[in-house]
């Protein structure tokens, strides 16, 4: 007789806590997508941990019926590293906003990526500080007027994904809050990657930055501004998938082309190779209006040993060298009797 395993549904990953984001916030959609992802993965609720910093995004763990740690601003990657080192069998997700991860938390993100700790790191990028009421963030575009920049911001924004690649990230992906089919797929890929996997999620802050991604997400432009990457598939987009991305191999830059126009054929369109870091760089930096935004798994390097695996192997190795007898160690070396 076969025992039919009890299947958990997305709802089983929701806590009984009232969700406290502003009505209409993009975070609701992300929550839904993550709960769906969990159900798709049939993730163990008690072996999964969500770790976050501070911010609207960082409230996330309270709504996941798993283990959760809402820590302090910017430090989630460091705390998650400690969790993973202490118990590598846990499935650890890190969640934070663009401020949490790229402003105060930039250094920890850098080192978690560089070290290749086996984490799924999600940045909810709304290009604003939501929780503290709307100041501009390191991803805000030049000229952003906010309470702290009444005349508009002057500093150049950082690209979460280009930054990650510069840090040595081996997996980067991107999706959009409301993309309830696409987002879970990207999250599952990230989950499957052994090593640090970073996913940027474009998220609408309805209160302080409403419509900042309208030029990408509004239904009338979406087709022309969203490029869904598939490994091994040509980079086509547009209503009728008539547009494509071509690599200009002379200038080493990307161009938007229309298949069938000016002699462009399907063969001219770049085929997505997740392992090509240089292309990944260019894809990460594509921006409207000139380009569509690249979505999906942009870069996925071959897996190498993750940090905690390497470090804990040293512990195992040390243990293998003989019983750990502290009494004996204390008495080794030069001792004398009185």
């Amino acid at each position, binding site marked *: 007789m076969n025992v039919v395993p009890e299947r958990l549904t997305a709802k089983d990953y929701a806590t009984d806590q009232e969700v406290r984001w502003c009505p209409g916030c993009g975070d609701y959609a992300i929550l839904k997508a993550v709960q769906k992802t969990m159900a798709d993965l049939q993730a163990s609720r008690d072996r999964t941990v969500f770790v976050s910093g501070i911010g609207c995004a960082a409230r996330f763990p309270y709504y996941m019926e798993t283990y959760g740690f809402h820590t302090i601003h910017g430090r989630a990657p460091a705390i998650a590293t400690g*969790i993973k080192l202490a118990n590598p069998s*846990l499935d650890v997700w890190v969640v934070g906003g663009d401020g949490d991860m790229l402003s105060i938390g930039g250094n*920890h993100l850098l080192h978690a990526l560089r070290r290749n700790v086996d984490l799924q790191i999600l940045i909810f990028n709304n290009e604003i500080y939501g929780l503290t009421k709307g100041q501009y963030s390191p991803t805000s575009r030049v000229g952003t007027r906010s309470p702290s920049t009444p005349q508009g911001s002057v500093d150049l924004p950082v690209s979460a994904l280009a930054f990650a690649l510069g840090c040595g990230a081996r997996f980067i992906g991107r999706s959009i809050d409301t993309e309830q089919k696409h987002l879970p797929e990207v999250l599952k890929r990230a989950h499957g990657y052994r090593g640090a996997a970073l996913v940027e999620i474009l998220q609408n802050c309805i209160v302080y930055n409403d419509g900042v991604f309208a030029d990408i997400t509004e239904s009338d432009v979406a087709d022309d501004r969203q490029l869904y990457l598939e490994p091994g598939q040509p980079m086509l987009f547009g209503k009728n998938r008539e547009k494509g991305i071509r690599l200009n191999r002379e200038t080493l830059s990307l161009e938007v082309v229309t298949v069938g126009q000016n002699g462009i054929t399907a063969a001219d369109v770049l085929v997505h190779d997740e392992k090509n870091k240089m292309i990944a760089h260019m894809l990460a930096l594509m921006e409207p209006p000139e380009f569509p935004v690249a979505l999906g798994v942009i870069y996925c390097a071959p897996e190498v040993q993750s940090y905690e695996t390497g470090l804990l192997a040293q512990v195992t*190795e040390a243990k293998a060298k003989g019983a750990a007898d502290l009494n004996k160690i204390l008495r080794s070396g030069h001792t004398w009797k009185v």
Partner: protein
Amino acid sequence: MVPPTAVAEASRPRHEIDSVVVRFAGDSGDGMQVTGSQFTLTSALAGNDFATFPDFPAEIRAPVGTTFGVSSFQINFGSQRIETAGDSLDVLVAMNPAALKVELKNLRVGGTIIADVGQFNDRNVKKAGFVANPLEDGSLEKYRVIKIDISALTMEAVKNSGLSKRDGLRCKNFWTLGLIYWMYGRDRAPTVEWLNKRFGAKRPELATANIAAMNAGHAFGETAEMSGEMTAFTVRPAEIAAGVYRTISGGEALAYGLVAGSQLAGLNIMFGSYPITPASPLLHILAGLKQFGVTTFQAEDEIAAVCAAIGGSYAGQLGITSSSGPGIALKMEAIGLAISTELPLVIVNSQRAGPSTGMPTKTEQSDLYQAVFGRNADAPLVVLASRSPSDCFETAVEAVRLATKYMTPVMLLTDGYIANAAEPWLIPDLAKLKPFRVRFRTEAEGFHPFLRDPKTLARVWATPGTPGLQHRIGGIEKAYDSGHISYEAGNHQKMTDTRKAKIDGIGNDIPEQGIEEGERTGDLAVVGWGSTYGPINRAVYTMRQKGLKVSHIHLRHIWPLPRNLGDLLKGFRRVLVPEMNTGQLVTVLRSQYLVAAEGLNKVNGQPFKISEIEHAIRTRLEH
């Protein structure tokens, strides 16, 4: 192997003395620390009690011959109980003029200088800031000066070793060690063994040359030529408790104590740290103890280090982090998180001279304020202080006990002096320590993450991976009855009161404060903490011999304070608090007990001298 020099011992009459303070001083590259620790080892094997004080320059390797590049190692050894590295020197070994320049002020009148005249050339003399060669100009007539061309004699001794001139000359510290071994009738065998072990496999010629140099120095002492100038001494073994001993530095004792504590608690260790002087040794030593289930993580900064430790505790290991003052300051926000989420955490603070970068290689006790008060909001934690290198072991075990039993951060204060110094240690039998195994919560029934033990007020420890106990914690205020986020006014009051009561309650779980030396009442209580133990204890002892009604009280538990301390202090007419800061413990004692405690403060990067404390006691009791 037969000890190469066993025959020579006791061939000439020796003066017997109780204790001696020797300081080896030379250039950073002269190997003074190695010389000192070898001498320490043989003193230990000879049964002496001792205390040491290594004193490094701030620079990694300062230019040769400069005063700021002088590195020295002081040892006080004797047949009586030794409490400090010694107030003033009996013997100063000066490998070059700069060493003499820097250390001369510490030599007692009539003390002995052993100088390598081979290094007292014009250039070096000038570089050290002398106008004329001090060995020649009569300026040292208050001392006994023994001039030896150690450089030349070393070169002679190693000439057949095949070493380059440069490498050969490097053996001069072992030549000098040989001479000093002769002076105090020491056995060279352990050092021979050490040299063979150190260099034997890879560069045996270095072992051979250094042994040759040492033997030559020793023989030099033996030979008649010097007999007029030099005296050989005997320092009898001290009367110390029976048992097996070893030398131990503060760094080692801390590491072993933390590992022992983790074993008693039944936990693995997740150690997160970022290098900083003088805290790094703990990182280095623990990195070599991985077989005990110790994971050492060199983080990108101090914040990440403490955060990783907190993550480790959250996941069910013992989170430990360590740093020195400036790095501890950076950790405070995260320590607040550990206080709020009530996770165990041990924070080791190896204090150094400040403020800011200050003098990283110099000692100070000025982080007590930071430990007790240095966080935003009402955020109490436990503060302990160890008094000596070996005491670090016990203090570390106590830190682990309190952190895990009470689910709280514990700050353990040590200092640069303790971290670097070494002393003999009666090795404890770990099997005899009482375990305090952690019980993780596993029952889902009635569980919420801020359920408390009604007695200790500690919350349950439920780690991710436990079936059915999934829950969320964080730094926002939590409802007393559910652990959920709560902004309710009365609840915050209750939680604040509970956090305070939990820490205050530890006062009932720690030993009553005892007296180190003297009666429970009297004219003057000298209250100390940390590494001032030695000089205070010796000073109080001596003053009691002189009939003064003074007692020594030394605190291990700084916060909460032992429950009987207030009453104890009231039994004394006056209270004196020597500290290597501008008066930090004294502030705490005055505020807690309204006793008119007064400070005795020294903030120059150097430990107290016994005489300074004796003087202070005398002036307090003569008024």
